[in-house]
């Protein structure tokens, strides 16, 4: 690890998600990434060594590093998303490690929602299986910009190019219908360390990058939308002190586009217009701001703006509507999605209520087929629905902007988050 502070300060953040069960080698892969980037500490290693021995296992079980809850360790399964961190001089990585079983689809959706990259593991011996498909379909639905298929356990197929090509062809055949733009294949052995950090000496036929190389060098800054200006107002700052008597700042995190001092802006849904007077970053004044910065904006005119309003540029306007079409993943274990029930809906910094007008179809996450007959939406189901909201929402298609295109739905009785929705 390089300790040069300046290098560390210039590093970029990359979030990736992995899904799968213990047997496909996911935990071993994560263990290896952490171990090879020297992110496992001695006491952590000692602790899992002791636990492994207690469980009567011969070798140190790296899966124990990622399974944090008592119930998970007892049952040897992953229930919830666990976040792991490692860094190299070039990048800091956040891994959202999610369970792959069908009963945890909701956790997979949670982990994938903020990812730049989805890492999919395929056992070279088994090829594309149901879980591979489900994970890929969810990555595609959530529009994760980059997908990397790691064809693992190459050591068990004699590092054969033919075996690799066969799985790759199988995957490409299946993935034709997915919306993922960028797919990369890497033959690896997580256990032996082939093509993880160092190129494998057993696969001279493979001329692509190692996994670490891919993760370190992948271009991600263009994945954000820098064209359509979106600034959801999160909080209004009014100090009311002598020094800042007339200060009225709109605090928020830029969701899209580049805002500059002097820009003409429109506030939605009211439609009032003004100009950006100043952009503040703590006690500094800056000239421009873009995603994902949290800033405070002052406008030239004193207009009525509150939390939930959106500041946009006068060109490339978003949609303002009370009727929305959503792809949702249903989370509630107690009751199915219901017509007529009023739910709370959160979108950017705005809160409203909504009712379901129609359930259009249920999506089969194993083969992408649409079920128009059975429209009972239970936990982990993915469906297309149409809703009406009590207030107009200022939104974009999810494919255009993951922040202004996403919602969560909350049950008003239990206060639980019962669905994740993407505006289509």
């Amino acid at each position, binding site marked *: *690890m390089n*300790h040069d*502070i300046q290098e*560390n*300060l210039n*590093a*970029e*953040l990359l979030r990736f998600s992995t899904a799968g069960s213990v047997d496909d080698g996911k935990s071993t892969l994560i263990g290896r990434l952490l171990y090879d980037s020297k992110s496992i*500490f*001695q*006491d*952590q290693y000692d*602790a899992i060594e002791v*636990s492994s021995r207690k469980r009567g296992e011969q070798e140190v079980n790296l899966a124990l590093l*990622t399974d*944090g*809850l*008592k*119930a998970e360790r007892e049952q040897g399964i992953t*229930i*919830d*998303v666990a*976040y792991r*961190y490692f*860094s190299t001089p070039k*990048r*800091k990585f956040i891994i959202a490690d999610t369970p792959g079983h069908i009963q945890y689809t909701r956790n997979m*959706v*949670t982990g994938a929602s*903020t990812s730049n990259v989805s890492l999919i593991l395929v056992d070279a011996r088994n090829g594309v299986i149901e879980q591979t498909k489900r994970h890929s379909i969810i990555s595609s639905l959530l529009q994760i910009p980059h997908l990397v298929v790691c064809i693992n356990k190459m050591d068990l197929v004699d590092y054969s190019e033919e075996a690799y090509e066969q799985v790759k062809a199988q995957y490409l055949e299946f993935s034709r219908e997915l919306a993922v733009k960028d797919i990369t294949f890497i033959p690896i052995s997580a256990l032996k360390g082939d093509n993880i950090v160092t190129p494998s000496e057993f696969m001279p036929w493979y001329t692509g990058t190692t996994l670490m190389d891919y993760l370190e060098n992948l271009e991600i*800054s263009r994945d954000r939308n*820098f064209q359509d200006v979106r600034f959801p107002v*999160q*909080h209004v*700052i*009014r*100090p009311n*002190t002598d020094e*800042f008597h007339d200060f009225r*700042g709109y*605090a*928020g*995190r830029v969701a899209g586009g580049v805002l500059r001092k002097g820009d003409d802006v429109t506030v939605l849904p009211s439609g009032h217009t003004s100009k950006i007077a100043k952009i*503040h970053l*703590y*006690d500094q004044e800056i000239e421009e701001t*873009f995603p*994902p*910065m*949290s800033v405070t904006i002052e406008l030239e005119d004193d207009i009525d703006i509150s*939390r939930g309003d959106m500041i946009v540029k006068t060109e490339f306007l978003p949609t303002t509507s009370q009727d929305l079409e959503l792809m949702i993943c249903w989370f509630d274990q107690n009751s199915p999605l219901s017509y007529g029930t009023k739910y*709370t809906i959160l979108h950017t*910094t705005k809160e409203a209520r909504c009712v379901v007008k129609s359930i259009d179809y249920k999506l089969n996450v194993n083969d992408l087929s649409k079920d128009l007959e059975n429209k009972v939406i239970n936990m982990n189901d993915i469906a297309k629905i149409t809703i009406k909201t009590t207030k107009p929402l200022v939104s974009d298609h999810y494919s255009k902007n993951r*922040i202004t295109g*996403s*919602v*969560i739905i909350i049950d008003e009785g239990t*206060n639980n*988050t019962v669905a*994740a929705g993407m505006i289509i």
Partner: protein
Amino acid sequence: MEYRIDYLRELESESIFIMREVAAQFENPVILFSGGKDSILLTYLAIKAFYPSKVPFPLLHVDTGHNFQETIDYRDWLVETYGLNLKVGYVQEAIDKGYVKEEKGYNASRNYLQTYTLLDELEKGKYDAALGGGRRDEEKARAKERFFSHRDEFGQWDPKNQRPELWNLFNGKKHYGEHFRVFPISNWTELDVWLYFELEKFPLPNLYFAHERQVFERDGMLLADCDFIVKKPSEEVYTETIRCRTIGDMTCTGVWKSNAVTIQEIIAEVATSRMTERGGRADDKRSESAMEDRKRQGYF
């Protein structure tokens, strides 16, 4: 023209976003302030998030009575400089009133008793959100913690039934009597915290930097000698150049041999260290799931 910010600025921006959500979604939030670097970072980010307004949340310090004096001095400086509103809950008071019982013996610590005072203060202050400096890289149970962590009316955490957290959408809805723990710096690692302080040149308590102190060894750990710990006859006190990697109660904060007197030297040390910072915390060593068990009961 490429638009990008480095990762520390992205983490900062994410934490500030969370702070502002707390201000918008809750009526009466509070920052839990321990005097350690993570709660200092939290306070500093809150100052940034609402500037030029004052931080809209009070700071709550649960005082075990077994503090390093440097912690109290620093706390008072911070409060004075940034015009913060400080509330203090005393563990001693709970002991005097007989609500909790002081542990006895060599390993006696008030660390467990803190939970009572914390929950009591949260209830008395009618706080509906308590912001803490917990980080997911600290400990395995924390790796599963949400930014907005729901607690029932007994302050308990139910790790198997956490609300999913998606995109930038945080659900802070609750029933009467329930509250939230919020962890704005979840995604920071120990190294990130140090790099950020170096970048920002923000002052920290002297305890974090190498200094000479009277210490003794116990279970392979160094502890600072003080009146609050009963020493075994075999435990000899000697002078050593040390620093703290975490700061808690004196009875359970291990100190480390170190010559690092600047943040840069600390960063070099952290980056090459083979032990996690909580490796020096006696309170985590009681069992494999010590942290998860305490968290379920309402510990931070």
